[in-house]
C-alpha cells in the first residue's frame, strides 16, 4: 500500500485515466477553437464540445442547450446568483440561502447585499437541514431566487431537492442548487427536482480542474441571466471566453462515466464508509458523527473526536490525507462555520475530521486509516488535560476556563 493515502475526495478527485485518454488528442492534434467557423479545426472542436454538452446534460436530465460552460462551480455560482439578481431586479430584490452553503454562494450573496439586495440566510438544525416551513415563510413576493446546495461539502447532508424545488415552483421563485458534491453520488434530475439553475465542477467527479458548468433552464420558466464576463459572445452571450476544449471534453467523459457507474459506485462507497466508520466508532465510542447519517453523501463521513484537537490529529496521521474543521487548519483561526452552524459548539468543531472516500479507495486503505486514527486519538488523549478531567469525573461545561 502506497502512502500517503488519499481520503479527501470531497476536496478534489484525481482524473480518471479514461478521462485523460479522451482529453489527450485535444491538446495536440484536434486543438481547434470551437468558435472558428471557417475551417475543420474549429468544426471538430465544436463537435467535441457539443458531445460533451450532451454527456453532461444527460447526467442531470437536462437539454444540451441548457448547459453553459464555466471555469468551475465558483464561477457557475457567481453567474447564477449575480446574473439572476441583476436580471430580475425589477421583479424583486430578495434572495434566500442557508448559513451552511459554500463560500462561493455566501460571498456572492454578501456582495449583493452591498448592492441593495436583501438576503435571508436560513439557519439549519443539528443535522444540517433547513426547515422547509421556515423556507416557505421566508419567501415573499419580492423573492427572486432560492439557492440551496444539493449536498454539503463538509458534512455531506443532502437537501431534499425535489421538495425545495416544488416549493419554489409553487411560489414562482427560481431555484438554484450548487450540486458540486453530488454528481456520481446521488441522482440529479432537473425536471423531477424542479431545478432552474445547477452548478457543477469537473474536478469533483474525476474530471480535470478548471472546468465546470451552469445548467440554466430554458423552458417553464425560461431563465435569463445578466452575463458576468463580456467579450466574444460565447455560450450565447452569457459567458464570453474561448472554451476550455480539453477540459470540457474531460468533463463530458467524466459525466458519462458517473452516470453509467452511479449505482455500482454508490454501493462500493457505502460499504467502504460503513467499514471505516464502524471500525472507528467501535474503538472510540465517544466519537460523534456530524450531519445527517441517513440523508448523506455515500462517500463522506465527518467525525468529531472529543478531547483531541483536529490539527494535531491530522499531524499525527500524516500518512492519510484528510481535512479538518479545526480553526488551526484555516488561515482565519476560526473553526468551521458549517459545524458551528449545526450548533455543535466550537469544541466539537475543533476536533472534527472529514474523511471522503472515492473511486480508487481500497478496503486495505480504509482499515489502515481507521487503525492509524484510533492509535493517534488514543496517543493524543493520553496527553490531553480534557480527557484526564473527564476520566476524573469532571464536567467540562462546569469548569471556569481562562479564555484568551
Amino acid at each position, binding site marked *: 500500500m502506497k502512502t500517503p493515502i488519499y481520503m479527501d475526495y470531497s476536496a478534489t478527485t484525481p482524473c480518471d485515466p479514461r478521462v485523460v485518454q479522451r482529453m489527450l488528442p485535444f491538446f495536440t492534434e484536434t486543438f481547434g477553437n470551437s468558435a472558428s467557423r471557417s475551417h475543420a479545426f474549429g468544426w471538430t472542436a465544436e463537435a467535441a464540445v457539443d458531445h460533451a454538452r450532451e454527456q453532461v446534460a444527460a447526467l442531470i436530465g437536462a437539454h444540451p442547450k441548457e448547459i453553459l460552460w464555466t471555469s468551475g462551480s465558483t464561477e457557475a455560482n457567481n453567474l447564477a446568483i449575480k446574473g439572476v439578481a441583476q436580471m430580475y431586479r425589477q421583479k424583486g430584490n430578495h434572495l434566500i440561502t442557508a448559513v451552511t452553503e459554500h463560500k462561493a454562494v455566501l460571498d456572492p450573496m454578501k456582495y449583493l447585499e452591498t448592492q441593495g439586495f436583501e438576503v435571508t440566510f436560513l439557519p439549519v438544525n443539528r443535522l444540517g437541514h433547513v426547515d422547509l416551513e421556515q423556507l416557505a415563510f421566508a419567501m415573499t413576493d419580492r423573492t427572486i431566487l432560492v439557492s440551496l446546495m444539493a449536498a454539503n461539502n463538509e458534512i455531506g447532508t443532502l437537501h431534499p431537492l425535489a421538495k425545495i424545488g416544488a416549493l419554489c415552483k409553487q411560489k414562482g421563485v427560481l431555484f438554484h442548487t450548487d450540486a458540486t458534491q453530488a454528481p456520481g453520488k446521488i441522482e440529479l434530475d432537473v425536471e423531477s427536482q424542479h431545478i432552474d439553475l445547477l452548478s457543477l465542477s469537473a474536478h469533483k467527479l474525476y474530471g480535470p480542474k478548471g472546468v465546470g458548468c451552469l445548467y440554466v433552464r430554458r423552458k417553464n420558466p425560461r431563465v435569463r441571466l445578466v452575463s458576468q464576463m463580456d467579450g466574444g459572445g460565447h455560450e450565447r452571450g452569457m459567458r464570453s471566453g474561448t472554451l476550455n476544449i480539453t477540459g470540457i471534453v474531460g468533463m463530458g467523459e467524466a459525466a458519462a462515466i458517473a452516470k453509467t457507474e452511479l449505482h455500482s459506485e454508490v454501493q462500493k462507497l457505502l460499504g467502504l464508509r460503513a467499514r471505516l466508520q464502524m471500525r472507528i466508532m467501535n474503538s472510540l465510542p465517544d466519537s460523534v458523527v456530524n450531519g445527517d447519517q441517513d440523508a448523506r453523501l455515500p462517500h463522506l463521513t465527518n467525525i468529531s473526536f472529543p478531547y*483531541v*484537537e483536529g490539527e*494535531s490529529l491530522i499531524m*499525527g496521521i500524516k500518512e492519510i490525507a484528510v481535512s479538518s474543521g*479545526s*480553526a488551526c*487548519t484555516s488561515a482565519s483561526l476560526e473553526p468551521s462555520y458549517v459545524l458551528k452552524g449545526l450548533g455543535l459548539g466550537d469544541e466539537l468543531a475543533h476536533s472534527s475530521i472529514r474523511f471522503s472516500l472515492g473511486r480508487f479507495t481500497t478496503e486495505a486503505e480504509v482499515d489502515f486509516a481507521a487503525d492509524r486514527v484510533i492509535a493517534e486519538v488514543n496517543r493524543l488523549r493520553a*496527553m490531553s*488535560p480534557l480527557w*484526564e478531567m473527564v476520566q476524573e469525573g469532571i464536567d467540562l461545561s462546569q469548569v471556569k476556563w481562562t479564555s484568551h
Partner: protein
Amino acid sequence: MAYSDKVLDHYQNPRNVGTLDKNALDVGTGVVGAPECGDVMKLQIKVGDDGRILDAKFKTYGCGSAIASSSLATEWLKGASVDDAAQIKNTQIVEELALPPVKIHCSVLAEDAIKAAIEDWRKKQAARIAASAASHS
C-alpha cells in the same frame, strides 16, 4: 502548515507528559486556555526546598505547536529556579521553535501556564508559612 523540525520532534516525542499530585504542597499547577478556543494547557511544577524545580509535567489539548510549546517549557523548567522560570518569555519559545506568526498565541499560552503554575505554588507556600506561624504562636 509547515512546521519546523523542532516542533515536529516535540509533537512526535513530547517530553514530560504526565501529571503530578495537584494537592501536594510542593506542586504548583497551572491550567490555561479554553476548549472552545481550541487549546488548553495544564502545566505542573514540583519545587524543592531550595526553590529549584525538581520536576515538570504537562498535558495539552491543542494543535501541534501548542503541544510543542508546552513540551519545550517543561524542559526549560526542570532544574531552573522558580525565579528564573518566572522570567521565561513567550518570545523565547517562538524563537526556539521557529513558530509562524499565526501560532504565536500558543507560546503566549505556554508562558501563561508557567506563570499560573508558579503562582499556584507560591500561594501554597504563603499558606504554609501562615499556617506554621499560626501554630507556633
